[in-house]
């Protein structure tokens, strides 16, 4: 190996260090300790597996080693028929690498094992030794092990394994410097472990017996009664559900309450940037593109970033405590009758912020059919982009009655969940026939979560969201803006008449009001004559049974790209202003009238729209992510078709029932 440098000066050497280990051994925390914040998450090409990758300089006394650190997915064995096991095995063989890295046999293998669960963890060490790579073994969580009365002799372990062994704690930082130094001295073990599974198990038992201190044999290890009590409470049929509901309520309360503050900042910031750009770019197509297309579109997406980041941060903290594994079993009981497993918990929970990270989180579901069902169901969960639409419609339905608004709001969430469960039930009986796979899940020890790891994960997820959804939404916003802005219409005669009238009036207020009436008329006219407006006219007959006129049809059509566009599209069409923060604008949408003078948002159409927006697949980026994660556009098309069908039928039923009951 080129690392055995004889020179005394610092030699830069580049090599790959693969970090391998069981799930829940603190591997990522240790990785973050070594790599700091410079890591990024990359996919393994052709799979949904991902790894964190960091380019770091590991400083030792004699040399500075430029290293590529790869945090592999946590696995129990290299030989399981699971995508994560295969990916790890391929990386060790040098046949696969995260996107952007060159596939090569790693120069060093860092195997992280859990000191509190040494024997089982030794199995993967045995499998690693068979790879004949320079190896270092980090025995992590040594602090927790010591508290439990577990003593491990590192020298004996190093002797048994034939490679350097470091006792460390990623949480406290203990032993990490020594580990970095040892990484430079990694060598191929001169020992070998058996290759068959039974042999490895016996070998692990022997090694364990040799390295654990004999003083612990008598009286056994301190039994963790607290863990036992907490586990029984958190998985209890009643107590478990109650604590689950309490924790989730707290989580959502924080997501909605705390995120509101940065969301307001973002809103203000984009508003002022829009204003600044608007005043610095001369009027014309580029001005409109920048202000109405780019800034409004990107702003409309970025505004959800605080909620998404907060969700991931809190979820990471919750996962760090060890609670999520217990919660998965609680939710498993509820989901199993509908054909999903407890593994769907995190994806469905995340989908309440945004379906995109939710669908991406479905990667962790081991069974393929379970995973597909979860992906197809995820967009039914009410994401934050639906909130502006829910707010508008519930306000229109129950003006000045906040309690009823709240009921209607809750009903929307419940309806989404119910539709999701129904969908899963249906698909698991037809195209994804079969029962969900029963869960077997390690229940990690309860711990104080690592803030740094949670923060880094949040940063990462936030960036992925911005890149994935941001680029897409940007493109869609530009296209939508173009469709809505072109072709330009000449000022109408009616508007010209108003303007002429305004000119002859002396009273400034009155003439101002006439001018704005004229502008509003022109705006509505050009909205009607734009490509989008014409599309609305063409598609209106399809939506007529749901009670939608041309303008609502345009709003719905525009929403196919992203549903939150509905409110601003309606504002542009009916009010001639897209400043929806203004209460008066919301009112003008609520009381907007059709071309023939009747109200657009009647009781019937509002309910119909509410059902439609809960159930319809109105988000292009979600479809793209579904196609990618489910492995084909047919799944995205199925999702689109099924959600549209369900939305159309429900909205139709709601409207027709209200009409029949004599409502308007």
């Amino acid at each position: 190996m080129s690392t055995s440098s004889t020179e005394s000066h610092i030699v830069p050497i580049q090599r790959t260090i693969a970090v391998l280990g069981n799930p829940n051994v603190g591997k990522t925390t240790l990785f973050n300790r070594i790599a700091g914040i410079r890591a990024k998450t990359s996919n393994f090409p052709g799979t949904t597996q991902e790894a964190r990758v960091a380019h770091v300089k590991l400083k030792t006394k004699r040399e500075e080693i430029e290293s590529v650190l790869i945090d592999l997915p946590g696995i129990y064995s290299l030989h399981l028929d699971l995508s994560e096991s295969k990916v790890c095995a391929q990386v060790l063989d040098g046949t696969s690498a995260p996107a952007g890295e060159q596939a090569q046999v790693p120069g060093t293998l860092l195997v992280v094992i859990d000191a509190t669960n040494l024997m089982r963890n030794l199995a993967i060490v045995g499998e690693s030794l068979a790879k004949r790579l320079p190896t270092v073994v980090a025995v992590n969580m040594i602090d927790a092990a010591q508290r439990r009365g577990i003593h491990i002799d590192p020298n004996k372990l190093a002797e048994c394994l034939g490679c350097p062994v470091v006792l460390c704690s990623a949480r406290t930082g203990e032993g990490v410097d020594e580990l970095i130094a040892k990484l430079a001295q990694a060598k191929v073990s001169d020992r070998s472990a058996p290759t068959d599974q039974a042999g490895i198990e016996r070998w692990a038992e022997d090694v364990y017996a040799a390295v654990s201190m004999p003083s612990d044999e008598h009286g056994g290890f301190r039994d963790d009664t607290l863990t036992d009590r907490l586990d029984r409470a958190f998985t209890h049929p009643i107590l478990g559900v109650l604590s689950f509901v309490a924790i989730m309520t707290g989580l959502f309360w924080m997501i909605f309450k705390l995120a509101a503050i940065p969301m307001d900042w973002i809103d203000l910031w984009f508003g002022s940037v829009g204003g600044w750009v608007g005043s610095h770019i001369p009027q014309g197509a580029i001005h409109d593109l920048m202000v109405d297309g780019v800034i409004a579109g990107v702003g409309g997406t970025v505004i959800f970033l605080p909620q998404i980041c907060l969700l991931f941060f809190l979820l990471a903290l919750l996962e760090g405590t060890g609670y999520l594994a217990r919660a998965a079993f609680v939710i498993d009981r509820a989901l199993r009758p509908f054909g999903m497993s407890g593994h769907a918990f995190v994806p469905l929970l995340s989908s309440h912020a945004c379906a995109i990270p939710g669908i991406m989180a479905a990667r962790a579901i081991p069974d393929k059919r379970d995973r597909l069902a979860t992906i197809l169901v995820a967009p039914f969960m009410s994401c934050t982009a639906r909130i502006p639409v829910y707010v508008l419609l519930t306000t229109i339905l129950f003006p000045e009655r906040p309690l009823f608004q709240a009921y209607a709001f809750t009903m929307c969430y419940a309806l989404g969940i119910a539709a999701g469960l129904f969908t899963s039930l249906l698909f698991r009986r037809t195209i994804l026939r079969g029962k969900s796979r029963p869960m077997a899940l390690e229940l990690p020890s309860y711990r104080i979560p690592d803030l740094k790891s949670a923060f880094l994960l949040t940063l990462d997820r936030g960036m992925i969201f911005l890149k994935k959804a941001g680029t897409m939404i940007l493109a869609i916003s530009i296209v939508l803006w173009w469709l809505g802005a072109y072709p330009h219409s000449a000022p109408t005669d009616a508007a010209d008449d108003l303007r002429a009238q305004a000119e002859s009036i002396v009273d400034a207020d009155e003439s101002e009001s006439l001018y704005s009436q004229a502008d509003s008329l022109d705006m509505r006219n050009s909205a009607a004559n734009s490509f989008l407006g014409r599309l609305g006219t063409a598609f209106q007959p399809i939506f007529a049974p749901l009670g939608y006129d041309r303008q609502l049809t345009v709003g719905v059509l525009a929403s196919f790209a992203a549903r939150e566009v509905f409110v601003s599209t309606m504002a542009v069409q009916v009010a001639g202003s897209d400043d929806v923060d203004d209460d008066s604008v919301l009112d003008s949408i609520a009381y907007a009238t059709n071309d023939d003078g009747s109200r657009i948002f009647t009781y019937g159409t509002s309910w119909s729209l509410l059902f439609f927006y809960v159930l319809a697949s109105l988000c292009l980026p979600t479809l793209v992510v579904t196609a990618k994660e489910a492995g084909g556009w047919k799944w995205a098309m199925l999702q689109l078709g099924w959600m549209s069908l369900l939305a159309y039928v429900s909205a139709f039923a709601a409207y027709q029932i209200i009409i029949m009951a004599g409502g308007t």
Partner: protein
Amino acid sequence: MMHTDTQTDIEANTKAVPLTKLTRGQSGRILCTESDADDSSMLRAMGLRPDASIQLCRLGEPCIVSLMGACGGGCRIGLAKDIASRVMVQLDDSSAH
């Protein structure tokens, strides 16, 4: 373990019982898992291998077992009842501990 009653003690020496037949606090040694190959190898990799000694911490949905003794006592695994019922265990007789 001390919680075993004499009835199960007699059975323990003669035959394998599903994990779900244990009572809370009882321990035993795994003989085999009677599920499909994928599940079996997954469980085995998680530590539920033949001859491993385990203790039942919670019976129900889910069952919680603790891999103990040689394993350091730090490993708890939650199992859907359906899986747990396929894990065949030989009960420890009370003198073994």
